[in-house]
């Protein structure tokens, strides 16, 4: 045990508990997969339930989901001493390993759902671009279309039908993707902070919340950058969904909390102490007050009072940012909070975040910038907005 860490400990800690093994990178993992699942579910609403209002964000949501999904496994890889060995979970999967099975869920969701759905939706655009572009761009789009130049009405009808089917399969897949991340934590029976059967559902709804907030912000940002005027009915609708999803998410979390308080099992005193000390700022202030109650109130306020467009936009941006911060804090409190107390319930440690190390703040920041870079490329290659999107 490192002597230097000992002053960070209060009370009794087992030697292997003093230093946190799961760092900020492991916080990013549920955060990014949550954004993916949430963005996809929002996109699916338009497709499956024909919510026309959110249509302008459909493609952007899919591309955002893809950008974040590509980044989602990277924090896990960085956490490993031998990242290349992670691929062995595909070669010799162990069915009793929750993480190994996640590899397959991830791959299924990436290839079987997201890439296919984007490909089908963009096929017409890609064919048209392959026809109009020149040089290497032409080759790129040729390759992306797999060399098929056919955009006959019948072929597009088939694409649409298949795309719809994939979306229908995709919704439970997205639920699975993020519910499973919750399961990975919820199934750790040795850790009372994590071990609860509602964990997958709480993760899922918080994922939906964060994904919707992300798409809302991305849409407004892209419109701003491209100088397109924001479709107000669209953002109004998204903001309403955000509020509903948030209300469900908050109720679930409160349900879990009330249940814990009433049950008050042997771990309760210890966890309660933590919520009043180490986790007070990140849990009570950042997550619950500024990350949940404030944005919900802002969104609810808009439903009741008629405000000008500019005021609504401002509120959406602020509420969206607060929401993302709140959900990030929620992941933080789960992952980091779950490692701050001793399994003896007699002591506590602290998390010292490093900066420019393999698992420090710097790689975490870079990993959070990376998806925006990927998204930027994706938006360049596959423009999400165009004059006439075939009225399908």
């Amino acid at each position, binding site marked *: 045990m490192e002597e230097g860490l000992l002053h960070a400990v209060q009370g*009794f800690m*087992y*030697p292997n508990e003093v230093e946190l093994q799961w760092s900020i990178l492991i916080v990013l993992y549920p955060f990014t997969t949550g954004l993916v699942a949430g963005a996809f579910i929002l996109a699916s609403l338009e497709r499956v339930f024909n919510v026309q209002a959110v249509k302008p964000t459909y493609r952007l949501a899919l591309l955002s989901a893809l950008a974040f999904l590509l980044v989602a496994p990277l924090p896990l890889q960085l956490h490993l001493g031998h990242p290349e060995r992670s691929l062995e979970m*595909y*070669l*010799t999967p*162990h069915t009793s390993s929750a993480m190994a099975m996640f590899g397959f869920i991830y791959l299924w969701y990436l*290839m079987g759902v997201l890439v*296919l759905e984007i*490909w089908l939706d963009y*096929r017409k655009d890609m064919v048209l671009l392959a026809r109009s572009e020149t040089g290497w761009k032409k080759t790129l789009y040729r390759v992306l*279309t*797999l*060399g*098929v130049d*056919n955009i*006959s009405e*019948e*072929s597009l009808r*088939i694409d649409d039908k*298949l795309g719809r089917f994939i979306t229908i399969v995709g919704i439970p897949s997205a639920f699975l993707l993020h519910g499973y991340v919750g399961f990975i934590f919820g199934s750790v029976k040795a850790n009372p902070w994590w071990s609860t059967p509602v964990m997958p559902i709480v993760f899922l709804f918080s994922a939906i919340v964060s994904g919707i907030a992300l798409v809302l912000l991305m849409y407004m940002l892209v419109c701003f950058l491209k100088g397109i005027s924001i479709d107000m009915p669209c953002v109004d609708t998204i903001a309403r969904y955000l509020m509903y999803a948030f209300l469900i998410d908050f109720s679930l979390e409160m349900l879990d909390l009330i249940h814990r308080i009433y049950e008050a099992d042997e771990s309760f005193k210890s966890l309660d102490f933590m919520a009043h000390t180490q986790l007070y700022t990140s849990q009570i202030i950042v997550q619950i007050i500024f990350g949940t109650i404030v944005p919900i109130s802002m969104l609810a306020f808009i439903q009741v009072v008629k405000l000008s467009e500019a005021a609504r936009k401002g509120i959406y941006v602020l509420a969206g940012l607060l929401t993302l911060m709140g959900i990030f804090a929620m992941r933080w409190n789960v992952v980091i909070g779950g490692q701050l107390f001793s399994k003896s319930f007699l002591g506590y440690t602290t998390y010292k975040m490093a900066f420019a190390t393999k698992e420090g703040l710097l790689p975490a920041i870079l990993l959070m910038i990376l998806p925006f870079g990927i998204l930027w490329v994706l938006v360049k290659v596959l423009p999400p907005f165009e004059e006439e999107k075939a009225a399908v």
Partner: protein
Amino acid sequence: MNRFLKDKEHLVRMAALFAVGVVLFLILKAVLVPKGFGVYGHYRAGALADNRVRAPRFAGRSACIECHTDERDAWKGGKHAGVGCEACHGALAKHAEDPSASNAFKPDPKTICFTCHLTNAAKPRKFPQIDPKNHFDGGACNGCHSPHAPDKEPKK
């Protein structure tokens, strides 16, 4: 190609691409997964044989005391009777086999004791533990305690 298939050609190609992916994966799997994997359990069966041919690095306390009778007599009745020789001296199979070919390691009596006796709240309370800061100014432990048969109350 008939009209029916014509409008689905891109899907056929995509399906073919996926099929190629799956086949590639299966080939990789066949190449990369070592032979004998999973025969006995979730590991490479050959690992057992590989381990078996490696010579043991520990000789065991019964081997040591065949030659080192002085240490045996001290150690047998003492408080360290439950501690194997190689817990302090390290793995010495080579030495036990041919003492002239391989010298044995003599642990530093100033530090070796702390691997077990340093105060730590996680250890059972009954286990003898000392804090070097207030245990006889941190002199070499064997000045007072014999490493092989430590007394609880040594002569000072």
